[in-house]
């Protein structure tokens, strides 16, 4: 079989597996978030937290709970890294320096998992498993919780109450993330991922040289890193490292894990608003964009256009032999379409246009299918913008799922939409204007700009992957990218929760003849169009100076 045909089957089998998971997983998550019973363990946890699980919150209280939890998480993780030398399993590492500890704390709490550090030479085992990996669980759960609140906003009428954050958080961790991650971790160990608590131990290689074999609780962290669309590698080489991603089939599994929750949440949405067709429409938009994207990136990588790829005869630089070019391109595409940012090959060495696709995927706002939860609420915001645009064109009051999209709603939606472009473009402009920050680029010319643009795109969209040649462990980059991550995560969340509050307050407007049907191909095409056009208009000039300038001669 040719490499191309095998690559198509690889991607096709993923599509099939995700389609099979859509209903059962989506229905299961629906039951998790709408069930009224608390398990005994959960009741115990609520008692420990001091939460009253049957008391629902308004959007403002919910938002304050999200922010309080996240702020406490940042402080805790910061302290953990600063004090790691006093803790067990530190491997003798020093405390993480201040600006890097701040950056890393923000990074993991915001589900970005941008890494300005190198795992194997910075973080002890305890910080990894009880600090960083905990945020892999809870930051994913926070994203899902916020998405569920937005869906409740559509589903409920004339109420201020939108659920209880502590219940949503605990249920999501205990009933969804933990069991699936546990099974996936065991499967990864079968493939060869390590799970131990060893210090690096030195062996003598066959040729007689010394080699330090590293250890760590890697499999448990790897499973939730993909499932929760986090992406922070235990090791610097991330999912290219054989201890994180040992074989060709663990590679398939990791891609599946990082897509499966985000692709199934539209089902949960459809169930909750009482119309499965609405869920199919949303997932159809996501899938359409994803399939076009994976086709393009695979084409660019296999065509290996450009001077060095032509000299090599293939886009193999930064790619593992076992994965090969096509499977690496699929991973790169999935990781940037979601907010994962794990990498099994190094995007900086991709062809110009292949590398541009990874950036373009993030610039879409990570909605196809996006991060756990954040992908769904991002896509629903775009659906709201689409009905508004369509309403303007035909001169009718826009409605979505029986809710009027009035000026208050559209203000929330457009503020949501404007945050990330502002962070990306302003951040990049500042970095390029400062000589010291320009010097951080590894590559010259347009590719150097791409490195900076990628960094701010990745941080602001909470992705976490990088054109990793850039040196970002400096006080300036750690601080600036930390700010971009925090702004790109929490401001949009507040707007989403605000939107949910104002939707829930409304009654239900019955559909009339003038209502735009939001489950037909026409609407699916319009949402996809709005997504691409808004992105293209915002970022095309920046892309033209970076990857397009490099790739088109």
């Amino acid at each position: 079989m040719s490499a191309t045909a095998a690559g198509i089957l690889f991607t096709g089998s993923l599509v099939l597996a995700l389609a099979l998971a859509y209903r059962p997983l989506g229905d299961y998550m629906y039951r998790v978030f709408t069930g009224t019973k608390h398990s005994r363990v959960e009741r115990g946890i609520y008692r420990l937290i001091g939460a009253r699980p049957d008391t629902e919150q308004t959007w403002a209280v919910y938002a304050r709970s999200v922010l309080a939890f996240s702020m406490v998480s940042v402080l805790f993780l910061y302290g953990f890294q600063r004090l790691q030398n006093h803790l067990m399993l530190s491997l003798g590492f020093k405390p993480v320096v201040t600006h890097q500890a701040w950056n890393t704390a923000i990074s993991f709490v915001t589900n970005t998992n941008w890494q300005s550090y190198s795992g194997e030479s910075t973080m002890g085992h305890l910080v990894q498993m009880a600090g960083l990996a905990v945020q892999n669980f809870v930051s994913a759960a926070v994203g899902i919780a916020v998405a569920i609140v937005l869906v409740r906003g559509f589903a409920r009428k004339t109420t201020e109450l939108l659920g209880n954050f502590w219940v949503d958080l605990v249920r999501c961790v205990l009933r969804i993330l933990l069991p699936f991650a546990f099974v996936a971790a065991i499967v990864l160990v079968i493939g060869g991922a390590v799970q131990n608590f060893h210090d690096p131990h030195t062996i003598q290689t066959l040729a007689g040289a010394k080699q330090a074999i590293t250890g760590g609780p890697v499999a448990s962290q790897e499973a939730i890193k993909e499932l929760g669309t986090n992406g922070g590698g235990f090791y610097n080489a991330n999912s290219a490292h054989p201890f994180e991603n040992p074989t060709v089939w663990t590679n398939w599994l990791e891609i599946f894990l990082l897509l499966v929750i985000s692709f199934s949440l539209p089902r949960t949405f459809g169930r909750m608003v009482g119309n499965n067709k609405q869920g199919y429409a949303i997932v159809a938009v996501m899938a359409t964009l994803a399939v076009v994207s994976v086709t393009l990136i695979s084409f660019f990588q296999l065509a290996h256009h450009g001077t060095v790829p032509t000299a090599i005869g293939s886009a193999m630089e930064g790619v593992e032999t076992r994965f090969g070019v096509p499977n690496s391109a699929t991973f790169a595409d999935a990781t940037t379409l979601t907010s994962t940012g794990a990498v099994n090959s190094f995007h900086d060495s991709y062809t110009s246009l292949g590398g541009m696709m990874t950036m373009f995927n993030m610039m879409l706002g990570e909605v196809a299918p996006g991060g756990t939860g954040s992908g769904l609420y991002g896509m629903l915001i775009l659906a709201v913008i689409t009905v508004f645009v369509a309403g303007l064109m035909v001169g009718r009051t826009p409605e979505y799922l029986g809710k009027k999209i009035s000026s208050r709603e559209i203000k929330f939606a457009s503020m949501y939409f404007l945050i990330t472009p502002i962070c990306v473009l302003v951040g990049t402009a500042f970095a390029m204007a400062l000589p010291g920050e320009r010097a951080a680029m590894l590559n010259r010319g347009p590719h150097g700009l791409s490195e900076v643009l990628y960094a701010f795109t990745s941080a602001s969209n909470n992705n976490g992957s990088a054109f990793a040649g850039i040196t970002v462990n400096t006080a300036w980059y750690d601080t600036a990218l930390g700010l971009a991550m925090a702004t790109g995560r929490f401001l949009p969340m507040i707007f989403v929760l605000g939107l949910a509050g104002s939707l829930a307050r409304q009654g239900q407007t019955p559909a009339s003849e003038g209502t735009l049907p939001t489950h037909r191909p026409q609407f699916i095409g319009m949402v996809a169009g709005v997504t691409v056009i808004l992105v293209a208009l915002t970022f095309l000039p920046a892309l033209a100076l970076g990857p397009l300038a490099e790739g088109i001669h």
Partner: protein
Amino acid sequence: MRLPTWIRQHLAAVRALLVLTVITGVAYPLAVWAVTFVPGLHSQAEGSMVTSGGRTVGSRIIGQAFTDKNGNPLKQYFQSRPSNAGTGYDPTATGASNLGPEDIVDTLPKNPANKAAEITAKTARDSLLTQVCSRSRAVGELEGVSGARPFCTPGGVGTVLSVIGPRDRAGHVARPTRVVSLNEQCGVVAKPFIATYGGVTVECAKYGEDYSKGAIVPIRGNAPARPKVPADAVTASGSGLDPHISPEYARLQAPRIAKTRGVPEEQVLQAIKDNEDGRVLGFLGAPRVNVLQLNIELDRKFPFHA
């Protein structure tokens, strides 16, 4: 006493984080660890270590270098891919080159004799193109085949010119006044890879001179699009710990191994075949050969006596 709401919220947050840390940060990894003591999982969880001649020689899934102290290939062993993990295959410093597809101009050393030290000090750097070209040349020489590649000089650097002169509206230089071969340093090469370009004699490049005002033009040359030396032999992997090479690269090395170890080439080719993995289920991943396993088998079947 009743605390203000905002304090109660933060107290709840602290308690929630602590409880969830115990569950997901301690109990969960320990539970996974406990399961790995089931027979059949333990060796993987410990790093898939392998032995040869009674001693542990590494991990089956972590690549290693088969070179001598000076970094020269040991002729009796199959060679792994180039690596950017530390000084090569160092698991405490994993990573990739991160150099882009148009990284084609070298930063020349002040003193070519001292180039390695200047590269370490980051005052000199080979472009990705030159790295590919020089690896291809070295592998070609070692295996006795042509190391020629597109955009590479026979000496193993990238064929890149700076064409200096007045630009036309599209930015091209139609009538150059001066042409420099950027990666061929004066004193290192006798003469540039082409004598003239656009009617101008091509110069070698001098340290410290700025040629960036010229149009940067890579020259394709006439090497075949599919060179004799395969792609994985001239590129570094993402992790720097790639345990595999392509079957093509393994077969390219077979004659040398057979000669060094004094066995018929067919037996070496058979050993490659025995250690070759195809695509799982016919479509997952890429065909590959585990280098460490193959070399262990060689040592067992055809011991090498220096």
